[in-house]
């Protein structure tokens, strides 16, 4: 099936990445979408290079994001530092195990799954070939869809920091894991956006 397909680019058509309008290439000059005015490219510019750069940055920050505490609870007589994982353990053994599963999924599974799968997509696209094309296409859509939900823990920390300020009784402060984790989420979202899934079909 894949052999008989004609692509828009092969016939000189640009697809607008914003509104999906087709426009025909007429000259060497830069093209803009006739309908919404967005910049037109046949493929996202420097897609693989940008994705790799953002992935490397995200991978570097992944360690402090998971190892440094995201918050510190100060109560009468004791301090407790919580990383992402220890926060989930507290939630699991304490108030609500279903929420613990949810947080574990969006904060631990999703970011690591994203880093691994995006790397896999970049490598397999760079090498080219037909290996599991359908599955890779579905994988990209899943990553693109689910990535934003990892921001959950950042919001939890910001609310707890703002609420638990009971002077002399208990207070919660944010730790340096929080900015690292927020950066990982933002960087991997950008990485997924820079990846152009059409490249893997071009190189199949």
């Amino acid at each position, binding site marked *: 099936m894949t052999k008989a397909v004609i692509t828009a680019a092969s016939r000189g058509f640009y697809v607008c990445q*914003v509104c999906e309008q087709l426009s025909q290439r007429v000259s060497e000059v830069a093209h803009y979408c006739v309908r919404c005015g967005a910049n037109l490219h046949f493929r996202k510019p420097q897609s693989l290079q940008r994705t790799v750069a953002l992935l490397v940055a995200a991978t570097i920050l992944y360690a402090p994001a998971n190892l440094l505490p995201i918050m510190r609870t100060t109560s009468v007589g004791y301090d407790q530092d919580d990383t992402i994982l220890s926060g989930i353990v507290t939630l699991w053994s304490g108030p609500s195990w279903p929420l613990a599963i949810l947080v574990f999924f969006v904060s631990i599974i999703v970011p690591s799954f994203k880093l691994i799968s995006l790397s896999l997509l970049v490598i397999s696209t760079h090498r080219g070939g037909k290996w599991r094309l*359908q599955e890779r296409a579905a994988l990209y859509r899943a990553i693109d869809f689910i990535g934003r939900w990892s921001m959950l823990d950042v919001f*939890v920390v910001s609310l707890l920091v*703002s609420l638990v300020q*009971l002077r002399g009784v208990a207070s919660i402060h944010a730790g340096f894991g929080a900015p690292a984790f927020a950066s990982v989420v933002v960087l991997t979202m950008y990485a997924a956006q820079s990846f152009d899934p059409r490249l893997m079909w071009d190189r199949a």
Partner: protein
Amino acid sequence: MKPLHILACHQCDALLSAARDRSAVFYCPRCNATVLRAVPKRLDHALALFLAAGVCFVLANVFPIVAIEAAGATVYTTLIGAVQSLHAESMNIVAVVVVLTTLVIPSIELLCVILLLMLAQLNHSSWALSFLFRVREALRPWSMVEIFVLGSLVAIVKLGNIANVVLGIGIWSMGAFIILSAAASHVFDPLEFWSEIKVPTTRLLK
């Protein structure tokens, strides 16, 4: 150049021809991505829903989200309050991420789509229309109010055994905002939107 009756899959670039059946969802035969989801044209319904969502969004930011009662004191927080606390802790990166994803970007996105639909109701086609459309499309993935609400739920459960937690008007308004904007986005299909609008013919490529 006449408007084309062919489409290109945005995921794998296959050229496809699709009959515009009003009640169908089209999938790319090559990669299975959703290419076209035909929705009845109801731009005025979308506008009404987005305006209602706007009202809820204002309420969500004015009123407290949650309050806790502990040790004889009541502490409440608003969205802005949460951002201010982060700033006070020198967690500026986190403060910026939170204020952008839950306040600045959702408001700009909402303003854009409301203006867009109002201009469309007036049958007004200009550069403003395309500009607003592009801004909204670029911002959409970064608007995270629904994730913030889920985060509030987790925070509430975490605090449940150390303090008495009271839900504020803010969180209910956020819930209403999410439902209304989801309904509005369902009615307002960006691809259908353009078939309602006359594109200035002078800008078409020859």
